[in-house]
């Protein structure tokens, strides 16, 4: 019982969970996922746009500087002056400034001679730094040709520059000098000022992820170095804090890379909070499910258990048990039905007890009536012979009839054929005629011969005829007693009719109410017994019927026609 209850509750709980928690979890996960994906996607788009703008800005400036350097490199005056190693030539300065004019705020332009000495510059006047010609920028410009972009080496002493663009100035075949554009930190800051976007930080690196410029927030950390290390080791870059995403793009003219660090739209902390809330709501839902399922199962189960206990009580014979009916739901309807069922069961039981008791009483009476019948029988036989010997014919006849009646009545059989019953009746009538000569006439009538074989309860008709003789003609008048046996369908209809005084109103009422005659009251006991026997054998509807008649009494018995071989 405990186990079934547990499993019932568990099943309920699981169903509640399935109905409550699963959709909730799925919804929460879906919403979080969509929320994040949408934000991430839009952030990514923004980052890509920002990155494209940064790359465009840088590419544009690289191209502009390249053009300016080209013009300087192709300028005949510049080449001639650098070849001669003359410094501070005003003509060259005017060419330099004129060429660099649109870009003066974006870069510093300088001219170096063939030995790497700085001869002309638009930059601030400071310590004039020479550059090695067999190393780095100038070597590449001379040996590789074209526009060279290089990071200013960390080991260089130049305090300002971050990145240099250079092309060799040639005079004929030989390299006579170098035109250099230098971007300082301020230049980078100016260049990216408008394009970097809020919440973003930018790092510019050379093709080997060596940082050239970093926006202030990124100066301390060095994501480029981490990326370089990751690339060399062939693994991805993991941002442990989860606060940023990184995007990179190559600026093709310089080959330099632009790394954009974007603040993540949803930080790990925010996600933690979201997950916390989602987890808490799922937990609350689970608790509610648990609570409801337990409450629900208890609500359903308590009446069922009461019903179950009540049924067990009924099983053990206690029919007095009743269940409280407090509602109209199915469970309480069931309780109501149970109550009605036990009611009916109780009524049936008491009815059958009553019948048992009645049967017992009838038997006792019959047994008392059979008291030592053999002695009576033998005595009657002796009387018959005494009558014959002494030639008292009536005594002999009465004794023989009485002995016959006695013999039949003490036989153990409960059923006899109609024929035997009629023979017994003949004997009885013969005695009564001797007792009351001329008082009545008995007229039996059987509709057909085969009805004589129909089985009927023993001594069924005798009490009725006796009743007619004793009560019908008690005032001394004479009359007739008609007994008819008819067939009606499968039923045998036996009718006893007399034209005597009829039943008193009191007797009639008592008969109709099936009440047993009072103790010591002899009247109509026979009718009552016949009625009881019929009811016992054929049920409540098979009793003796009192038919209305103008004069006398008419009693009718209707029973199914049954032959000797068919026991009821």
């Amino acid at each position, binding site marked *: 019982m405990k186990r079934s209850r547990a499993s019932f509750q568990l099943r309920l709980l699981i169903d509640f969970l399935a109905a409550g928690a699963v959709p909730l979890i799925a919804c929460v996960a879906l919403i979080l*996922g969509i929320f994040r994906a949408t934000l991430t996607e839009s952030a990514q788009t923004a980052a890509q746009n920002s990155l494209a703008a940064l790359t465009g800005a840088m590419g544009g400036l690289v191209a502009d500087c390249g053009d300016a350097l080209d013009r300087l490199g192709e300028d005949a005056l510049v080449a001639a002056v650098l070849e001669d190693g003359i410094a501070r030539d005003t003509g060259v300065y005017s060419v330099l400034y004129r060429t660099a004019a649109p870009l003066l705020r974006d870069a510093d332009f300088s001219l170096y001679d063939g030995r790497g000495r700085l001869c002309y510059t638009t930059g601030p006047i400071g310590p004039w730094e020479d550059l090695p010609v067999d190393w780095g920028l100038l070597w590449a410009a001379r040996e590789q040709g074209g526009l060279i972009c290089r990071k200013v080496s960390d080991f260089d002493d130049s305090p300002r520059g971050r990145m240099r663009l250079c092309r060799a100035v040639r005079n004929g075949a030989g390299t006579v000098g170098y035109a250099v554009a230098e971007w300082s930190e301020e230049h980078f800051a100016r260049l990216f000022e408008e394009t970097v976007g809020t919440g973003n930080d930018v790092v510019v690196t050379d093709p080997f992820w060596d940082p050239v410029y970093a926006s202030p927030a990124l100066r301390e950390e060095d994501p480029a170095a981490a990326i370089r290390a990751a690339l060399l080791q*062939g693994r*991805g870059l993991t941002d442990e804090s989860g606060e940023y995403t990184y995007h990179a793009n190559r600026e093709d003219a310089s080959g330099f890379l632009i790394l954009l660090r974007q603040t993540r739209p949803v930080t790990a902390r925010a996600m933690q909070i979201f997950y916390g809330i989602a987890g808490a709501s799922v937990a609350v839902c689970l608790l509610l499910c648990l609570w409801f399922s337990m409450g629900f199962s208890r609500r359903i189960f308590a009446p069922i258990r009461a019903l179950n206990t009540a049924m067990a009580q009924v099983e053990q014979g206690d029919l007095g048990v009743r269940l409280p009916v407090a509602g109209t739901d199915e469970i309480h309807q069931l309780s109501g039905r149970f109550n009605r069922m036990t009611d009916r069961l109780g009524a049936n039981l008491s009815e059958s007890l009553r019948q048992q008791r009645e049967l017992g009483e009838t038997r006792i009476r019959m047994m008392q009536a059979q008291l030592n019948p053999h002695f009576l029988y033998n005595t009657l036989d002796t009387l018959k012979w005494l009558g014959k010997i002494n030639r008292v014919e009536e005594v002999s006849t009465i004794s023989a009839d009485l002995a016959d009646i006695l013999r039949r009545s003490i036989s153990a059989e409960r059923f006899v054929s109609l024929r035997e019953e009629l023979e017994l009746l003949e004997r009885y009538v013969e005695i009564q005629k001797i007792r009351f000569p001329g008082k009545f006439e008995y007229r039996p009538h059987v509709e057909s011969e085969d009805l004589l074989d129909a089985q009927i309860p023993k001594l069924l008709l005798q009490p009725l005829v006796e009743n007619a003789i004793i009560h019908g003609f008690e005032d001394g008048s004479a009359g007739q007693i008609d007994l008819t046996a008819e067939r009606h369908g499968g039923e045998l209809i036996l009718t006893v009719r007399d034209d005597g005084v009829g039943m008193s109103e009191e007797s009639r009422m008592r008969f109709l109410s099936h009440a047993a005659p009072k103790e010591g009251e002899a009247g109509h006991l026979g009718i009552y017994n016949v009625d009881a026997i019929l009811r016992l054998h054929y049920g409540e509807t098979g009793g003796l019927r009192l038919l209305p008649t103008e004069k006398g009494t008419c009693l009718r018995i209707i029973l199914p026609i049954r032959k000797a071989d068919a026991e009821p």
Partner: protein
Amino acid sequence: MKRLSRALFCAVLLCLSACGAGAISDFSDYAPDEAHRLTVYTSHKEEVYGPIVKEFEERTGIWVQVETGGTNELLLRIEEEADAPRCDVMFGGGVESLAAYAKRFEPYACADAALLKPELRSQDDRWTPFSSLPVVLVYNPRLVADGELTGWADLLADPYRGQIAFADPAVSGSAYTALMTMLTALGGDEEELLAHFCEALGGQTLADSGDVTQAVSSGACSVGVTLEQSAIKAIAEGANLALVFPKEGTSDLPDGSALVAGAPHPENARAFLDFVLGRDVQSLVAGKLARRTVRTDVADREDLPSAAQPLFLEYDIARASEKKEAILLRWAQLCGEVQAG
């Protein structure tokens, strides 16, 4: 039940997919291919390898992964990785140390081998020299008069007892080289010399060869033994220091580089060795790095003591590494005795 678990599983999957989005930024497109990679183990300081590696990358487009460490540590790693080498080039470390691990290196004569100073080259090209590092004596001019310290023999004299800055030869390769140089230069009974020197040191050595110039400059010691390049660098940084080439002669054992046998990127490794021995890098070595070049066609810095002046003795690398354990053991005993006594 089954359906329920399936639904739960789906929900969990959804959660996971929501959590996993975009934690890693993928830059693998920017990674160099195998043909453009090189791994270098170096015991040089960053100021030495930094510009060289950077220039190499820019000139060749080859990405160089640098791993730094002490010479012996890196050589041990190369030994450990012998079955599957990760390193292509060992860059730096005394050639004595490199010679001890000659088995792990592959002979390679660099492109300009003919232009290298022949006395600095290895016999079998299992290593190539990078810069020559003469052993010199240094003194604090405030404590020691000019001309007072002239050679190894002076170090052993009484005035400097307990005043000599000398790194532990068991730790510092250059200190061992200096010790062996002294033994060679002075000649005679090694055992006696060792004992003598230990006494002169008072059984005290410095933990690191880099501490020598500091100890002398600060006046903690009045004289010291170190490499020329360390001394010059210290002087350039304003240390209170003067240097002397010992009159009995000294060694100029170079540091070197070597191609690791079975290197994953041998072509790039050879290109790197060619580059570091090339004119441009050797000019940097002789110029900015204030070392002595190993090339005949590159001039040393003019402010260096002239190469003609010092007497360079022949240093027997094979013998030095052969006797190393015995000498260090004896050295430890002697120093222990001096300290106890």
